[in-house]
């Protein structure tokens, strides 16, 4: 869109600019597009949707679904818009009776062998076949022969379930595995309308990126075994988020309903994850819902005091920490699973409330790594932790030295913000046994929560607004999808409450104010605009965001009523 405030008519004549734009006309509307753009993208620029199944702008062109056929002025026959590139003076017609008839007939052909079991199909509600049926076909099913039967539920890999009958053979999944994941584990078998998608004998679909084929599948043929039969897609709301599975920080959507996250989907961001994410990342969704600690625990397992509220637990924790403040035996363990805002508040607490000059660095142990997305560091915010600690003048000590210091008696009391540790939690809990006081903030139950004197319930990152700094030093905002469970609160809220109990006057209505107040202490954060939500991150209050075509559904696919981008009243605030 040219900027109306800066009209530049004189520029054209003198400069024979090499990256000249191609002029064409689509449905009577003039369009300027870069050479090499195809007609689907060019039409999209002016808001014309050309229907498609097989096209995906990050995959090679297959042009096999024939859904995108349009009329062009330089060919007598209908041409596939995905395969046809813009050319100077081209006239494109997308809505003529001839074109609509071809859309209708392709839709009808695809439905000819389709089971149409939408009632039990996870894709229902976000299925292109359903949408285009409503848009173009609208005719009763007229079978002339029994449907070709195929495998209805075939677990082809640890993450993916295949329903060959629903497949429209667009080969997106095959092309993704070949071109992006570079593990060609899917193929097309048999011929004609007996054709089906399958894995090769002895080689299941065990790629770490298999889950992306589920998003790419325009119908309900490839299904997530984590999501299958758990929610109806049309009831889910969507919130832009960041995957906390590793240091890449893939941009995601959290799809949730009634305070429960049901799945992650990748959100498009060319700089970070293109349009993909890994299956391990998808499965970290379970950390949002499984074994959640939602009420404080006071007293170690066995001698637990029942029924304490969060306020009571906070004052109990502060009362026991206060006399140790500034003493030699007190230490703090901080996890790189926390957001930048959490860390700002926790470091403030450590520095000013507890009088510490060093932190022990927690976090999950390193794992596997590859060239596409997966990073060895399984924590989303290690760089953020290092930046913030340095900003507060806190030294970082490796986790291994903590256990040594405990057994040597140098650490007798520990405050832990986040209990993700690089060793078996049981081992760590046992090693922390001799400690006199253990106060933790934890998202989930576990051996450390059992070993702690006081466990404060922390919220996972789907329940508050915050920032992770990925391994490249790119701060990325995630947003609150739904309210905190029960008494769980963000780490920064808990730290703020502890500070207050310790007699400090810090008060922040939301993470935005916290960030504004504390981030100046961290020079690396100076250039970061907290209100910048990243690609596809903007949303209206109460309305789920545009999916930004991460799964190549048309933009605005899920919520047609969404406001135009850039018109949002409120940039990043959470919903409540």
């Amino acid at each position: 869109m040219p900027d109306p405030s800066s009209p530049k008519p004189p520029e054209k004549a003198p400069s024979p600019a090499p990256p000249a734009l191609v002029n064409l006309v689509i449905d009577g509307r003039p369009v300027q597009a870069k050479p090499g753009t195809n007609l689907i993208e060019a039409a999209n620029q002016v808001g014309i949707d050309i229907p498609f199944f097989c096209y995906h702008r990050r995959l090679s062109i297959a042009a096999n679904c024939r859904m995108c056929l349009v009329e062009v002025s330089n060919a007598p026959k209908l041409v596939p818009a995905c395969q046809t590139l813009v050319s100077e003076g081209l006239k494109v017609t997308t809505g003529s009776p001839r074109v609509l008839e071809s859309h209708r007939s392709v839709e009808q052909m695809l439905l000819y062998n389709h089971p149409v079991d939408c009632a039990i199909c996870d894709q229902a509600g976000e299925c292109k076949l359903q949408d285009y049926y409503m848009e173009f076909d609208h005719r009763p099913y007229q079978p002339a022969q029994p449907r070709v039967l195929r495998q209805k539920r075939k677990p082809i890999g640890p993450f993916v379930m295949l329903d060959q009958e629903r497949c429209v053979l667009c080969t997106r999944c095959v092309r993704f595995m070949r071109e992006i994941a570079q593990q060609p584990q899917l193929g097309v078998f048999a011929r004609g309308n007996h054709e089906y998608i399958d894995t090769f004998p002895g080689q299941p679909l065990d790629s770490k990126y298999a889950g992306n084929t589920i998003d790419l599948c325009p119908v309900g043929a490839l299904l997530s075994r984590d999501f299958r039969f758990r929610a109806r897609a049309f009831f889910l709301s969507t919130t832009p988020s960041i995957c906390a599975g590793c240091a890449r920080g893939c941009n995601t959507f959290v799809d949730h309903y009634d305070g429960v996250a049901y799945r992650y989907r990748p959100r498009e961001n060319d700089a970070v994850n293109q349009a993909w994410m890994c299956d391990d990342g998808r499965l970290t969704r379970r950390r949002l819902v499984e074994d959640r600690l939602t009420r404080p625990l006071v007293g170690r397992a066995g001698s637990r005091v029942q029924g304490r509220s969060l306020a009571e637990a906070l004052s109990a924790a502060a009362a026991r920490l206060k006399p140790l403040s500034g003493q030699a035996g007190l230490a703090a363990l901080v996890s790189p699973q926390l957001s930048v805002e959490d860390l700002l508040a926790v470091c403030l607490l450590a520095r000013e409330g507890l009088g510490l000059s060093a932190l022990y660095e927690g976090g999950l142990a390193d794992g596997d790594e590859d060239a596409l997305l997966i990073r060895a560091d399984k924590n989303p915010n290690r760089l953020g932790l290092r930046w913030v600690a340095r900003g507060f003048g806190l030294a970082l000590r490796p986790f291994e030295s903590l256990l040594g210091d405990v057994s040597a008696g140098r650490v007798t009391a520990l405050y832990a913000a986040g209990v993700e540790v690089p060793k078996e939690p049981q081992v760590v809990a046992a090693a922390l046994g001799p400690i006199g006081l253990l106060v933790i903030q934890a998202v989930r139950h576990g051996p450390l929560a059992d070993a702690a004197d006081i466990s404060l319930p922390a919220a996972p990152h789907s329940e508050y607004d915050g920032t992770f700094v990925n391994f490249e030093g790119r701060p990325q905002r995630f947003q609150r999808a739904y309210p905190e469970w029960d008494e769980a609160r963000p780490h920064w809220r808990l730290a703020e409450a502890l500070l207050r109990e310790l007699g400090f006057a810090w008060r922040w209505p939301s993470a935005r104010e916290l960030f504004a107040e504390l981030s100046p202490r961290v020079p690396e954060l100076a250039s970061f605009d907290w209100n910048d939500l990243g690609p596809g991150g903007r949303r209206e209050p109460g309305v789920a965001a545009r999916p930004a075509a991460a799964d190549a559904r048309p933009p605005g696919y899920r919520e047609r009523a969404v406001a135009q981008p850039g018109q949002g009243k409120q940039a990043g605030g959470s919903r409540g």
Partner: protein
Amino acid sequence: MAAPAQLPPTRPATLLPTGGPAPGVERVVSRRWGRPQSWTLASYVADGGYRALKKALAMTPAAIIDEVKRSNLRGRGGAGFPTGMKWSFIPKDVPGSTGAPSKPRYLCVNGDESEPGTFKDRYILDNDPHALIEGMAIASYAIGAHTAYVYLRGEFKRQAERMEAAIAEAREHGFLGPNVAGSGFALEAHVHRGAGAYICGEETALLESLEGKRGWPRLKPPFPAVVGLFGCPTVVNNVETLANVPAILDRGAAWFAGLGTEKSGGTRLMCVSGHVRRPGVYEVPMKMTLRQLVVDVCGGPEEGRTIKAVIPGGSSSPVLAPHELDVACEFEALKNAGTMAGSGGVIVMDDTACLVRTLWRISKFYAEESCGQCTPCRDGTPWQEALLYRMENGTAEPGDLDKLISVANAICPFPPMGLGNTICPLGDAAALPVHSFVQKFRPEFEAHLREKRCPFPTPWGRSAGAYGPAAPVARGWS
């Protein structure tokens, strides 16, 4: 190495006697068929073989291409594309990085010959493999290819063996190999047998298949002349096309062009099958009309029967009614008649043939052979088949004929012709017969619908129910 003499003898082709009904007929491709041991090098050389190759190797590639252009040779594989022009599309010099050799080029010989009604290439492979090898060598030299692949239909076992033996023999005598006929030009030829898919005759599917992939036609552009086998410039030619080339070089483009019509040089092999008294492969002049071929040369239908329909160029070409037969067996004339010369497979049906059943059988073939890549063809061809099956079987519903036409229209709108919605022309090939049969023989289809049975009394026409439960039902995976 199998000695050629041990191979089983072929059934001699039914041949048009030299100087047959059409005066001045000259046999070019079939000239040597039926002679004893015609497939051996000795016999070929004795008949003047490999003379043209030596002549060609003394010419420049550009001069050869020019000669072939002037001969008006057109592809015999189906599309009738001028061969010399096809060769000239090969980029003259593929600029590589400095000093690096340019990309290799390839010649692929299309011997997949699976179109129903077509059975000519096998006779060339059987009877005169050296003519093909000589044509390949000349073509390779003209386009700068040093490797040629002969892609043969999987069922052509004997032909593949004979071709392999001939290649070995030619190599032994220096007509292939590192130094072809002492000219310094290197050429290796390989035989590759397909696995039984009609679609692998489509040139880009053939290339995919040769590369070891699924035989799925490629999107065009780019065309094989630019991005072909293994991403390199490639020419794909039919067996008959290349078998014509030695004669052109030997006797001159003007002679060859003079045999044909203004735009199509040479003669054609026509494969006549169906209800005629003398079916077989005939080499005929381009000017001969279909009626002459079917009635005069092949003897027409049996006593007391009349011709009802003729398919002129393989099952994918639109059918002709009896009054339309006065058309030359030539590319332009057939095109003007609303059909196509295709691959020369002439299928004759007399008045005992049920055209609904015929069309059902044709549609079944295409439903079976659709590669399944693009939607209209993958799901439209079985739909056509199922509708036709119902008509023949007497279970059709009143709207089925319109439905059939609408399905065929979705694959390939008619008219205009040849403007399909699919990736490759197989979709057109499946829809055009439907369009043309229904257009020209509509009353017969309506009779099936009205009477709710097949009105033909012959066993072939009796209700398809007699053949057991519906074939389409039995198909499927579990």
